[in-house]
């Protein structure tokens, strides 16, 4: 079956190779004409995970699903929707996993404490050292 599929793919290669079964979504690779809105959409896309790739955002993925999501985001932004509203809609559909934005999910908040904790730990070690030296 696999060999047959490969053969089939080979036969169709030259004219059709770049095409998937369905035509790409209208705004998958088409910018919004208003640059301000496009910037807004782009910023959101960069924080949305491509669900069929390995750790890529939908802003830089060839996957057709990422294209569909880009198109959705651009269309909703053009319709005047706020980025955070779109994010909530995406999270409702696909779960928290879809968003890279670390401020959106309370489960991610401890991550913001990590640098303070680490710097504090480092300073504690350092302070001990300077004190010991001062006593000499």
């Amino acid at each position, binding site marked *: 079956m696999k060999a047959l*599929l*490969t053969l089939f*793919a*080979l036969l169709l*290669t*030259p*004219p059709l*190779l*770049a*095409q*998937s079964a369905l*035509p*790409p979504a209208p705004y998958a*690779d*088409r*910018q919004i004409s208003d640059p301000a809105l496009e910037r807004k959409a*782009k910023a959101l896309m*960069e*924080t949305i*995970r491509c669900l069929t790739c*390995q*750790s*890529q*955002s939908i*802003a*830089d*993925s*060839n996957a057709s699903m990422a294209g569909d999501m880009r198109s959705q985001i651009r269309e909703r932004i053009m319709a005047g929707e706020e980025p955070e509203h779109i994010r909530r809609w995406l999270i409702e559909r696909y*779960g*928290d*996993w*879809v*968003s*890279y*934005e*670390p401020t959106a*999910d309370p*489960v*991610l908040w401890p*991550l*913001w404490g*990590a*640098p303070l904790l*680490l*710097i504090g730990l*480092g*300073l504690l070690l*350092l302070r001990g050292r*300077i004190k*010991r*030296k001062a006593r*000499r």
Partner: protein
Amino acid sequence: MIAEAGLVALWLAAALAFLQLGLVAFGLAGKKSELLEAVRPVAVAQGALTTIAFTALIALFMRSDMSVLLVANNSHSMKPWLYKFAGTWGNHEGSMLLWVTVMGVAGAAVALFERALRRDTHMATLGGQAAISLGFYAFLLFASNPFARINPPAADGQGLNPLLQDPGLAFHPPTLYLGYVGLSVAFSFAIGALLTRQVDASFARAMRPWVLAAWILLTLGITAGSYWAYYELGWGGWWFWDPVENASLMPWLAATALLHSVTVLATRDALRAWTVMLAVIAFSMSMVGTFLVRSGILTSVHAFAVDPERGSFILVLLGIYIGGALALFGWRVGAVREGAPFELVSRETMLVVNNLLLSVILGLVLIGTLYPLLTEAFGHKVSVGAPYFDRIAGPIALILMIVMAAGPLTRWRRDNLAEVGRRLIVPAVIAMIAFAAVAILAWGRIGVLPFLGLVIALAVAAGSVAPLWKRNLRRTPLFTWGMVVAHLGCAVSLAGMACDSAFTVEKLAAVRPGDVVEAAGWKLRLTRIVPIAGDNWTALQADMEASRNGGPPVMLHPQSRFFPSPPTTTTEAALLTRWNGQLYVVLGQEADQGRWQLRVWWKPFVTLIWFGGALVALGGALALVGRERRGWLLKWRGKAAVA
């Protein structure tokens, strides 16, 4: 026969590692010098045997021997020879064999070339190297045998992932592995020094060239990998904070910190325990990275369950080595006397701050990479990616850059704050001018981080060459040049990153042949779309003419390639490099009635990112040669004097 010969060589190498460990243990414990005499030849033979095993695997791939499971699963007889060759390490078993080969060869090199270290510490180091190697031999022989046969042989192979079919594969993984595994030498040095209680300046001077060499290779490997991802993935990104990338970044951060603390130990005999600790951490990070990548645990916890044997095996190895090393550290750290004291305003303090900030970034990358695993264990799937790492590691890295400029301008032991400030006047003035200039030109159009990045890059570039001011340049030691070049490289790279994120122009368009796309002063005309064929792929190629501001046109040929085995489509971006940036053009899908998707980016000064990385590695190489040459010269003069 070749496969069996390779397997025998691997078993023999493992046996020799066992012998090496035994010789060191009994030799040092019983003070038997005749046992220790044998350690060096055994280490060299072990290195030779691993090389034979690896060469055997390369031969199997080159001959497309489909009776070997690994070749059948990962290669194809129709592949160009370069990818048959490089495909040897483009898979799990082959890359682990590369790992033990590098480890064996590094052990042989330590046996042959290390002359500065005290004899007992040298022997204990070779014992440590043998102990680490043993675990990886066991992993290879029991859980991922690269030489396993299949009967009957496959008709042909399943091919190599087309994304990997690029000259980058021949260079990037071996360089990175040389760096990862080179850090095992530093780890073994630390074990050796803890065992013989010799943690002092002469130990640090002996360890430094090995750390430096591993660090240079890591820097080159990461830089090359970043450029490869940039041109291959087709979206103009050069760093994705992907777990696999983080796995290579963590050892680099640890090695960078180690490189600086080992210099403090070598020069001032301070930071003894910390340097040993960092040497342990650096290689531990290499192993953690390998575990994360090889077990597949990071893409999903479920991928881990697909091959629990391998994942658990590496996890146990990690536990033994990292746990063992930390236990040894805890047991012996009391015996390590505190090093020389220093004052608050001194180069030592600057380097301590460097170490602190690098360790904090390392900790953040580690926590951020592992956090999704933690939450998933509690049934809540989350993503941690670029938006977190950029915002949290970015500001710390910028502070680190400022410290990097100030450190070399501060004296060892004690300095005066006002004096240091005076030496930093020129960079500070440049920072103010840059701030004003960037603010006037781009206020409100660029983000805070790129803005600060640009300003700091310019100031730090000036600050990093400041150690050369008012010096006789011909009498300046080569290692000082090395430091200046490496620090300048960091500033250059930062400037590239800031320019890319601040000024990149993106243009997406659907065009017919004959149409023109305009972006950032460029005019791109699509002439035609033609089908072409390569060795093991077919492609659609766009023939385009690009010209900037009415200049002479240049031909561009972005492609969309189709590989039949395994069936995959990849994009081959067309890159046009100018002194002030790069034009990046990708051919996408056919949109509708004869119109084609084009993605066009103009990326001002983006090439500085990798040019800076190369400068950093060059600086490391100059420092290495400078230090070593001084040693050779002294030795040569000593010999001449005796004669």
